[in-house]
């Protein structure tokens, strides 16, 4: 092969023009194939990695023991966003809160189609839906609860959700040197809405849903991270105690019980005492179908009866670091997720209420939240 030097640069130039980049549409289409799965199932929200924008949604068919991953992007050709934090089911709609994208996607739970969204939020964490026209959204940064119209006025006609912000409930604690009060989970009991203030905080705020005002705040342990409501309308609150060398201080992780009637809080468990000094980590609360047994992550998975809160080992860790936990509200089966190295597909384990393994399946990156489809 002998090419004249004169033609050499021209050949290179021409060759370079023949190879062009792929484009986003072409890229997305490569992955857009999915069969819809009817029946009862579990949505698994996978956070993805902060600032990667690689959150995803999985669906696990409980009867068939089959999982479908990336269902949102496959059906809709769009990425879910950056840090999917929670999911709330409302009739046949799922509201998936995308924390670091400032939005909530509304998805049809049957075919996973995106039917609309609520945008313009700051750092949303959870949504509690009162009715078609009113919902509350908690926020890590805004120091307020955002009131939204979750579906918009034309939803019944167009079936397209055009959610919008309609108001705010100020939570800001001006007296603190820390950015208090951030809001997390939202649990409604009658006309009261309870939210836990996690980051550098120790309060459970109580909001009157008729007047949309803060009516009380309840002090608990440092950094209340997770709450469940039991059969007697008492709240159980897990406080992670903060982290080592935190300027807010650190204390042993604990579990509080709060009466939603009189707002009295009682420390029920101090985990280093009830579990032992070898406690390495603790997280997440979940409650069973009859709402009388509370499960939580603590060197494996433990549980206690609400009538006799002495934790028993439900499942030893055996090398697993469980990142999140849920319990089936009908069967009381337990689902626990391990994020492995947090930068690859995580694993979800399914156990019977007696702790017998039933199934194991892979989902997306950082499985962190769950919701059941009826």
């Amino acid at each position, binding site marked *: *092969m*002998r*090419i*004249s*030097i004169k033609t*050499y*640069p021209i050949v*290179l*130039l021409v060759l*370079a023009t023949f190879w*062009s*980049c*792929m*484009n*986003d549409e072409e890229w*997305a289409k*490569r992955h857009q194939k999915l069969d819809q799965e009817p029946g009862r199932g579990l949505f698994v929200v996978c956070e993805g990695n902060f600032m*990667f*924008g*690689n959150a995803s949604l999985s669906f696990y068919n409980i009867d068939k023991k089959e999982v479908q991953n990336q269902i949102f*992007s*496959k059906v809709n*050709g*769009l*990425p*879910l966003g*950056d840090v999917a934090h929670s999911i709330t089911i409302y009739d046949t709609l799922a509201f998936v809160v*995308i924390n*670091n*994208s*400032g*939005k909530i996607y509304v998805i049809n739970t049957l075919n996973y189609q995106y*039917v609309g*969204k609520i945008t*313009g*939020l*700051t*750092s949303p964490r959870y949504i509690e839906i009162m009715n078609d026209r009113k919902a509350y959204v908690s926020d890590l*940064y*805004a120091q*307020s609860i955002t009131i939204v119209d979750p579906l918009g006025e034309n939803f019944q006609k*167009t079936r*397209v959700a*055009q959610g919008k912000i309609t108001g705010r409930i100020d939570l800001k604690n001006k007296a603190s040197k*820390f950015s208090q009060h951030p809001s997390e989970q939202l649990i409604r009991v009658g006309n009261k809405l309870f939210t836990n203030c996690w980051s550098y905080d120790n309060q459970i705020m109580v909001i009157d849903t008729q007047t949309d005002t803060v009516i009380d705040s309840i002090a608990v342990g440092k950094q209340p991270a997770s709450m469940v409501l039991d059969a007697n309308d008492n709240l159980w609150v897990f406080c992670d105690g903060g982290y*080592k*060398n*935190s*300027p*807010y201080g650190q204390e042993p992780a604990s579990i509080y019980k709060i009466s939603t009637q009189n707002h009295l809080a009682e420390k029920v468990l101090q985990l280093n005492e009830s579990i032992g000094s070898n406690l390495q980590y603790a*997280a997440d609360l979940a409650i069973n179908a009859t709402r009388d047994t509370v499960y939580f992550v603590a060197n494996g998975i433990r549980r206690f009866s609400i009538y006799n809160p002495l934790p028993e080992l439900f499942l030893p860790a055996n090398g*697993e670091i469980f990142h999140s936990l849920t319990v089936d509200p009908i069967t009381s089966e337990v689902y626990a997720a*391990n*994020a492995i*190295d947090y*930068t*690859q*597909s995580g*694993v979800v384990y399914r156990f019977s209420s007696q702790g017998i393994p039933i199934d194991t399946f*892979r989902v997306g990156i950082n499985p962190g939240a769950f919701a059941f489809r009826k």
Partner: protein
Amino acid sequence: MKQFTIILLFFILSFCISKPAKAQSLSDTLRIGQVDVFGKRIINQQNTATTRTEIDTMVMKSMTVLSLSELLSGHTPIFIKSYGRGSMASASFRGTAPSHTAVHWNGIQLNSPMLGMVDFSLLPVGFFDEITLKHGSSSLDQGEGALGGSIEMRSSANWDNRISGQFTASAASFSTYDFWGKLNLGTSRFQSKTRAFWSQSENNFSFRNPLNADINPETGNYIHPTQKNENADWLNRGILQEMYFRINENQFLTARIWGQNTDRSIPTLATNESDSESLMNRQTDQSVRSVIQWDYYLNNLSVHANSGLNSTNLNYILKTRISGETNFQEYINSESQSNSWFNALDLKYRFSNQFLMELKNETNRHQVNTFEQRSLTGYDQIRIENLFMLKALYQISDFGLNGLIRNSWVDGKWHPLIPMLGLEYSGWKHQGFTVFARAARNFRLPTLNDLFYQPGGNPNLRPEKGLSFDLGSGFSKQFERSTFHLKANAFYSPINDWIVWLPTYYGGWEPQNVKKVISSGVELSSSLMGSVNQLKYNIQANYSLSNSINHGESLHWADESIGKQLPYIPRHSANTLISLQYERINLNYSWNYYSQRFTTTSNQTLNPLDELYAYFMNDVSLGREFRLGKNRLNADFRVFNLFNETYRTVLQRMMPRRNYSFTISYSF
């Protein structure tokens, strides 16, 4: 793989040229200042059995107003991970982490003692006269810890200069304006070089966002918004003053001071749909660097001493204005100050023409003070290091030997010896061939953030430890009117205790010594310079294969990361530059390519976000020189992203489509 074909084709074509061209190379048009001959002779010997890449000064000259990130990504084997136009850009050299690339400027290290890395988007090409890449263990004569390699930026005096200068102004797309100036004044005993730049941009390019969609309520169709790259502006200013004193024929004193201030916004990810005044990121980088250097030459002895300061201040703010409120609310306001004081004494003695020894000691002090005002967290730590190096170069017959040993004492603790040994054979020099082999040990201490950051810093981290093996060859051929160079290098480097920041169960991040990584690959570079009649040409091509494979222990039965390429490291990268000059008109065409990059440790490809597709960038510039007596006026029109490609180097960070710049430069 069809992209790979292009790269191979270039190297094949290089060997198939039938008629070597006749004439001088393009580089003879560059004015090069006087270089100290004694110093250069030693430096040449020091290159024995090393892998180096000198960046073409013509390329540097054509990119005066651009940043080092743009220069390195387009013209070297280094992968630049850019978070967007004007945003932070970090380097991966030989498939290693950003903190594994050491950056030296005239004797002091620019890597942050806090983060370990350098943001290349902040470094202006026009502030340096020469840039050299030292691959892998070739960097050990400058310092330890550069597991990937090092980048050295240097400046020097032209003692013949009396007055000269250059002023450059550039206007580019997205309201981008750059000004750069240089004024050199001096005598045969004193030279002053002053350089300054101003760069500002709205950086508000438009793009159709394929990652977000509204639904048309009537048709049900998606409407992808066309939006601006908002909150992405920058203002970057800097000044560099250098003073060179020739005390006598044997002694030189040099003083340099470089001040810079960069204020920029960092755009949110493309999927963000918070309020337009939510989650606004603003970062200000201020730095003052100064070095005083004394060089002494006496017979076979040369002594180099320098003392330098590198002070940086980084302020990062995340703020939001909630609808209905008048004031912004800050969620993060962090202030990070670092002060490094470098002191080095370097003695070189030439025992004979075949034998040279070098002894070097560095005593450095680093202090980092960080504080975040909202969470009230931070740390204040000092690191003191004493570094020793003994180096010997020995030439016997056709064999050259390059050996060194380093030892370090950091914060009261001795660290393991670091030896390096290289052997070069030049027996086939008359046929244009040289071959070499090199082996070394290296290790890198955790950064101060790795150890002390709040929350998450891990004081129990071990240093990263590595071995490095290189096998290389060079080929040069001088034709009647052209010159051809080809360099090929293979490397293999196992690194233990690789530090990775991992999320934790409590929601924060923490660094861990989790991985054993084997970095291996091949580097090829070639150049052909010459002329055909009145047409001068300079063609350069680089190709790099970088396998960065996780060989650590499995964390879990389902862990699929073992044996996989590290995230965000392209396996293949390549670039070519074709420069043509006809009389006073010049045409430059540059092309660069990065292969697919995975975003997960398991290299899974379950959805479009698990990988970034390969991309090709084509830039072209057309320039004309006008002579105004002894002075010159250059006008240059450049097209970036010629084929209007969609591409990204980081997930969801939008990059601009085709864009333009027009530059005028006046030299005297």
